[in-house]
């Protein structure tokens, strides 16, 4: 059974979830590119584009950039009343761009380091992966487990072969790492 962590209970009321969206663009000349956009709800996103192989660094940069900048809450003008208002209810409580950072905020935007969050480095549990439940009590069961892994490996290879791969100028395949 997998353990579920309660994220909502540890969230401060004034903290907003940060949405990071990764869009992988169709490959051009065998090179995959992606767009990463990141923003809390109701704010203009930070948009970064780059090579597929740099995806992890781009995501870190987008995350850090959002934390480092002043809030970019979008306010729109009401056509009926002529008043300006933010597009989210929460954001109505504060003027855009004027929010003072809390003293307890873990990341102050200094340096390139990402904030350290306790328990954030826990590896994924095996129960997150869908594997057939087979009791390893006898030889037949062991063989079934081996077969299941072989099938998974074969499926992974087929999937990998069907994906477009990045190639260098000589046409050799480049490992995205």
């Amino acid at each position: 059974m997998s353990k579920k962590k309660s994220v909502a209970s540890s969230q401060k009321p004034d903290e907003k979830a940060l949405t990071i969206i990764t869009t992988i663009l169709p490959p051009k000349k065998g090179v995959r590119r992606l767009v990463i956009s990141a923003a809390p709800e109701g704010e203009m996103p930070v948009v970064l584009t780059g090579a597929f192989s740099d995806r992890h660094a781009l995501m870190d940069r987008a995350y850090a950039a959002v934390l480092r900048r002043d809030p970019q809450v979008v306010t729109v003008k009401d056509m009926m009343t002529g008043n300006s208002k933010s597009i989210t209810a929460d954001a109505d409580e504060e003027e855009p761009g004027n929010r003072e950072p809390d003293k307890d905020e873990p990341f102050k935007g200094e340096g390139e380091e990402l904030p350290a969050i306790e328990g954030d480095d826990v590896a994924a549990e095996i129960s997150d992966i869908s594997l057939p439940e087979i009791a390893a009590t006898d030889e037949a069961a062991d063989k079934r487990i081996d077969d299941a892994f072989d099938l998974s490996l074969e499926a992974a290879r087929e999937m990998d072969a069907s994906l477009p791969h990045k190639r260098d100028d000589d046409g050799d395949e480049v490992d995205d790492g």
Partner: protein
Amino acid sequence: MANKIKYGDRELDMGELTLEQAKQLMARHFPELADPQVDKKEAKNGDVTYTFTKKAGRKG
């Protein structure tokens, strides 16, 4: 020459995004822009600003 997106009082540099990609991106972050009205404005220096607004719905 730069392409920009404007929504409300905020602007965003489009970089190498196409207008279609920009529309998709904005719709994901701002669900009210799933079917936006986009007005194109070209400055004298060649800068293009696409102003996104929520389409007014019909009542009734």
